[in-house]
């Protein structure tokens, strides 16, 4: 089966998932992002003309402020023309299918689509449908994948830990519904992290999660023991009570990340969160704002990583 993300020369054509990509491609993106961050660390991200004359369409079938904004900033820093469309889930009920929407935007000469959709596989469907000179970036599809989030997480880890091959990483929380977790797991294993753990009650884990190459923990203290990186996941409001979990309070009591629990990890462990955070549900404020937290740098790096992805796909040489 052909990898729908690569062209026939083995180059990245679309970014749909971190699964099935060679480590080389992931590393190249991180390296390229590093160059943009160096620019950024001069307090000013230089605007570069890599995507000059290109049109980037952010099509969001599911609401998002943070992700859409960082994509928009990234595209503008690359001198692209950016169009934002918040389509919402109602447009399909108005009769227009997803692919009709895409066809219309193609007719407006889009060069790149950044797509978020509530259903797994939406970005794959669009990528399979568009002309070969158009690139698709998956900005989150259902429970499936959120590759740019995972890449910015990898960038953050590399920034603080330098290497991947000697790390223990724990992913904590609602893995079952999380596209972020799936993309993180594939990226971590591809980049050579020897031990990836998931920590959650059984109701928040997919049945065959171990097939993804992770070790499963249900006990938070054991799961955090001696890890170098703690990656927290967001717990959606609607899942805090009902048949998955009895209450947010009980969840925090056993799976909330407190300073006390974090002490199980290595003393130089970093704490990450894809945002937006539920303080007092999955993470205590003292940890979120504490010395080991790298949550805000993640957001900053997110711009550079998205610039790197967009320029890898459509920017040619720097």
């Amino acid at each position, binding site marked *: 089966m052909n990898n729908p993300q690569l062209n026939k020369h083995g180059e990245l054509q679309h970014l749909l998932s971190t699964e099935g990509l060679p480590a080389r491609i992931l590393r190249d993106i991180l390296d390229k992002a590093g160059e943009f961050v160096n620019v950024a660390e001069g307090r000013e991200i230089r605007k570069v003309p890599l995507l000059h004359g290109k049109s980037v369409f952010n099509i969001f079938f599911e609401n998002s402020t943070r992700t859409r904004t960082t994509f928009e900033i990234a595209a503008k820093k690359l001198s692209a023309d950016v169009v934002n469309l918040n389509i919402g889930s109602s447009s399909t009920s108005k009769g227009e299918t997803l692919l009709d929407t895409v066809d219309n935007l193609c007719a407006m000469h889009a060069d790149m689509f950044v797509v978020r959709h509530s259903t797994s596989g939406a970005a*794959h469907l669009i990528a399979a449908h568009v002309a070969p000179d158009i690139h698709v970036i998956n900005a989150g*599809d259902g429970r*499936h994948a959120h590759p740019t989030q995972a890449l910015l997480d990898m960038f953050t880890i590399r920034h603080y830990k330098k290497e991947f091959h000697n790390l223990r990483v724990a992913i904590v929380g609602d893995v079952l519904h999380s596209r972020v977790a799936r993309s993180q797991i594939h990226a971590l294993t591809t980049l050579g992290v020897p031990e990836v753990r998931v920590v959650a009650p059984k109701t928040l884990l997919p049945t*065959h999660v171990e*097939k993804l190459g992770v070790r499963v923990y249900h006990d938070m203290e054991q799961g955090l023991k001696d890890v170098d990186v703690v990656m927290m996941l967001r717990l959606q409001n609607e899942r805090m009570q009902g048949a998955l979990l009895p209450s947010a309070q009980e969840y925090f009591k056993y799976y909330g990340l407190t300073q006390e629990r974090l002490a199980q990890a290595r003393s130089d462990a970093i704490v990450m969160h894809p945002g937006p955070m539920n303080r007092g549900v999955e993470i205590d404020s003292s940890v979120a704002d504490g010395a080991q937290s790298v949550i805000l740098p993640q957001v900053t790096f997110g711009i550079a990583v998205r610039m790197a992805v967009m320029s890898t796909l459509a920017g040619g040489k720097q």
Partner: protein
Amino acid sequence: MNIHIKNGRLIDPHNKIDAKQDVFIVDKRIAAIGTAPQGFVAEQVIDASGMIVMPGLVDVAARLREPGYEYRATLESEMEAAMAGGVTSLSCPPDTDPPLDEPGLVEMLKHRARSLNRARVFPVGALTYGLKGAELTEMIELTEAGCKAFGQADAPLTDTRVLLRAMQYAATFGYRVWLRPQDSFLAKNGVAHDGEVATRLGLPPIPVVAETTALATILQLAQETGVKLHICRISSAAGVELIRTAKRQGLAVTCDVSMNHVHLTEMDIGFFDANCHLAPPLRSQRDKAALRAGLLDGTIDAICSDHSPVDEDAKQMPFAEAEAGATGMELLLPLVLKWAEEDKVSLPDALMRVTINPAQLLGVKTGHLSVGAHADVCVFDPNATWKVAPTALKSQGKNTPFNGYTVQGRVRHTIVEGHVAYSI
């Protein structure tokens, strides 16, 4: 019409015939096998040299989409598909719009089908009004209108007391109850087998226990009521084992599997191929192997196409939003032949699963070529290969996971009630 089918290899599993024998049809019936009846004058001669002559196929699950879903398929288009597939008898599930819960609807469907003079249509009536799982339908009236069994298609029947009552009522009159076992709570919103692929792709899962918990309940209620039970579209190893045990204990239960599940697994979903969005979901390699073992040891009685034409727009969607189902009647014979070859099953044994076995569990008199039987015959070329493609299919539904496969076995002639309804 008097037809002489000569020089073919006749395979009639019911009569245990596998030999080079001619078939003689007089009017609407099989008049003789081997030697011509006295005074026989052929009006049409079919030279079946190099071909196999068999009873027309009996497909226990073919959605014709009428009434109500004519944009997906019509009786005309799907009857052509049946003929091209050598299917001369079929039963259609009641999930039309409106559902087959009124005698008038069933009579209309039977009448429309008869007027087309193609495959015989044996509707499965709705077990409950509107398939809502609350009130029993008029099963006697529906039977008089032509229903051969009663079921819920894919609609849930969650109220176990209603299910018990429905079985008791059906058992009173000796009617058949056909059910696809799926617990609607455990399967809620699910679109793929709860396995490695669904985990990787983030697809909402349908666990095997959704099948087995429902199946265990159904089997116990059948035991209690003594109803003639048929289990539709078994999909899991654990499900096959439950049926095997029930049969061993003497329960009157039969079972079918769709050809899709005999050949495909969750891995075929690949990168979200919506053509593999099926109900029940494609399961693991281990489940597929167990289904094949169930076919071999007789736990599973019949193979069906589970023909479900879906319009293109409903498939051009993200996997979970795409409608479940695949077209299939034209692929039933080639895929049964493929299974026979892969599992080294003799042709008579394999063809039994699409002729006499389904006819018997449906309670109809077709599926064999005994003298005096309906002259429903399929003549196919076992060596002809063809490529599955939308343009190669007569069905209005072009959606199939087998798109692009090269299959072996091509129907050349389909005879229904003594007239040649299809020839290429």
